[in-house]
């Protein structure tokens, strides 16, 4: 269904665009922005100041506590070191309970408590010199806060869990089974692909999952991990090994399937131009590598020119498709 522009919601972005096109003068733009919330009013600023004081305060305080732990103050007795962190965690949980998880204050308190669990584990490692690999610290940290994350109703805390799981897996491969003979990128890709599906489902199901930053960041990381075996295959990097996991052979196939899924999901199911831009950029990387390598075997000098020119053509095509899609979404909104 095509929608007239005048029937679309009046957003600050649309008003700015109308002003750029000469449909509104400065006074009209300013008045329109005030009516649509594009210029914050007194209450908006009060809320912003309130949030900023809360978030900055929590951020500074948590950083300070981490620095305190990192200082490894020998004059402080062992029980005091544990006690400071444990007391802080308990206090934060009480604040969470008191404020509630429907308010930002409660969510921030629970997030800080979750971060302090990591500090507590680090102190444990310092005190008892456990000698355990770092991945176990991050893995245990993720495990311990998983319950809080589940009830948190806060995408930032889900992001913390996601980061911890990624760190655990990366460190596991680096510290326990390093080398190309193990399916490092594929497992990391799988973790992020599954996480992306979970985020999308949660975004549809829960109203508190309002932002798309975590979905986009996860997709970016997933693309990065699946491009690794794809490019390694193109560069014949895996040919140096006698025994490689079968999954490496399917890297390019996994990439192609992920690409298809991303195009389908974010052009039809959940329109998102950022995701499609990432997908397009990954295609440019893969095609440019293929073109450059193939031509370099024939003629070095010409390959530079043709490859450079091909990047221009690919980017031009990508941008054309993306802009047309955006235009179609706006008209069919």
């Amino acid at each position: 269904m095509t929608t007239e522009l005048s029937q679309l919601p009046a957003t600050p972005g649309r008003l700015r665009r109308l002003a750029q096109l000469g449909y509104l003068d400065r006074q009209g733009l300013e008045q329109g922005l005030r009516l649509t919330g594009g210029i914050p009013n007194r209450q908006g600023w009060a809320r912003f100041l309130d949030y900023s004081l809360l978030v900055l305060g929590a951020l500074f305080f948590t950083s300070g506590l981490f620095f305190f732990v990192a200082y490894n103050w020998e004059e402080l007795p062992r029980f005091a070191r544990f006690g400071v962190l444990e007391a802080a965690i308990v206090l934060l949980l009480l604040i969470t309970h008191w404020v509630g998880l429907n308010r930002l204050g409660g969510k921030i308190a629970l997030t800080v408590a979750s971060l302090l669990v990591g500090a507590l584990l680090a102190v444990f490692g310092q005190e008892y010199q456990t000698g355990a690999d770092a991945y176990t610290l991050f893995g245990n940290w993720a495990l311990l806060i998983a319950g809080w994350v589940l009830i948190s109703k806060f995408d930032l805390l889900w992001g913390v869990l996601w980061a911890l799981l990624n760190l655990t897996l990366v460190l596991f491969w680096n510290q326990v089974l390093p080398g190309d003979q193990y399916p490092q990128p594929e497992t990391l890709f799988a973790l992020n692909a599954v996480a992306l599906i979970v985020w999308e489902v949660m975004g549809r199901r829960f109203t508190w999952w309002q932002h798309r930053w975590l979905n986009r960041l996860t997709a970016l990381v997933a693309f990065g991990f699946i491009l690794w075996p794809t490019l390694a295959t193109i560069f014949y990097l895996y040919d140096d090994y006698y025994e490689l996991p079968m999954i490496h052979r399917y890297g390019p196939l996994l990439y192609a399937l992920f690409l298809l899924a991303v195009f389908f999901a974010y052009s039809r199911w959940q329109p998102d131009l950022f995701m499609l831009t990432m997908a397009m950029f990954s295609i440019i990387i893969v095609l440019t590598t293929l073109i450059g390598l193939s031509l370099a075997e024939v003629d070095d000098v010409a390959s530079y020119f043709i490859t450079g020119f091909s990047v221009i053509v690919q980017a031009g095509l990508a941008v054309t498709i993306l802009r047309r899609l955006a235009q179609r979404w706006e008209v069919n909104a």
Partner: protein
Amino acid sequence: MSTTPMQLGDLLAQLPPRTNQQAGEQPLPPTLTNSLDADTSPWYVKALVGIAAWIAALFLGTFLGAAGLIDSYESMLILGAVLTAIAIVLRRLTPRSIFWGQLAFAVVLAGQGLLVGGFAWWNDNATNTAFFVMALEVVVFLLYPDALHRMLSVLAITGAALFVLYEYELQEWVHGLTFLLAVGAVAIWQQELRLLTSRWQGFRAPLGYGLALALFGICLLPPANDFFFFFWATQWWISAAVLAVVLLYLAFTLLHELAQPILSPMGLWALGAVALLLIPAYQTPGILAAVIVLLLGYWRNNVLLMGLATAFLLFFLSTYYYYLDITLLNKSYILMGTGGVLLLLRFLFHQVVGQQHGDLEA
């Protein structure tokens, strides 16, 4: 903030006729997202264009070198000038073509690379080359009508200016540059609406984002000093002080816009927060720069600016760890103290201002 769902037609009808040309005879366009118009592209599409142009320019530059077309500084200067001129003409002749725009972008980057390389080869003086970069970027900024490239020009000019300060051993003058960039960024975003509706609208985004990013770039120097790049400037408290002045000016401007006296509860709370932030920002001016950009972003409802500010704030806070002049224990006291007082301010703010504005939190 009010988020009344209102249709564009209804809103335009509410505006007085003198401010609303649409109410006259000019009909609205069918869509605002013109598939051929670069201005409507989101930042990530522009980023794709920019990165692709850089890659293409590198390949084209390598081709010119490998083909033996640039074997002397004369050939570099001539070819660079020709390519830059061709790109400017191409961009001006085909302002709406995506393909030619992409080609022009790659060519103008390759052309400038050759010009700078050729000049450096001929003159053999790094300071003169930096001056040449500044002059070249000013010319290209004015003549090449592309928002992304103009933003890169702002960054290149700042980088070249820093290099000149370094070469002349005027490192402490960097604080003056910090001040100029902060003032520039505030001025551009303060005048955003005026710029948007003027013939200078093409300079709004590149200057606004470019100056903010350049400011962040300069604020990266104090932590970089401790690691891999020794810039010699040591008195970073001066940068923190000038940024505090700019932050105070911004706070006063915002309070004035809201018709709030400085001695009102909101004014006092805002000033208290600024004063508190000065403690950790001593020697880490980036914290104040990030807060300035965060305020500008919220003022102009600009999510990209707010996102950039948040990312840099987190970064600058983490670099505080490496600041060597005070012990980790003292740093932890400063951060915990600042955080604790900010939270206390928030609690009091909630009690006092919250009662005036109803429930502050959703």
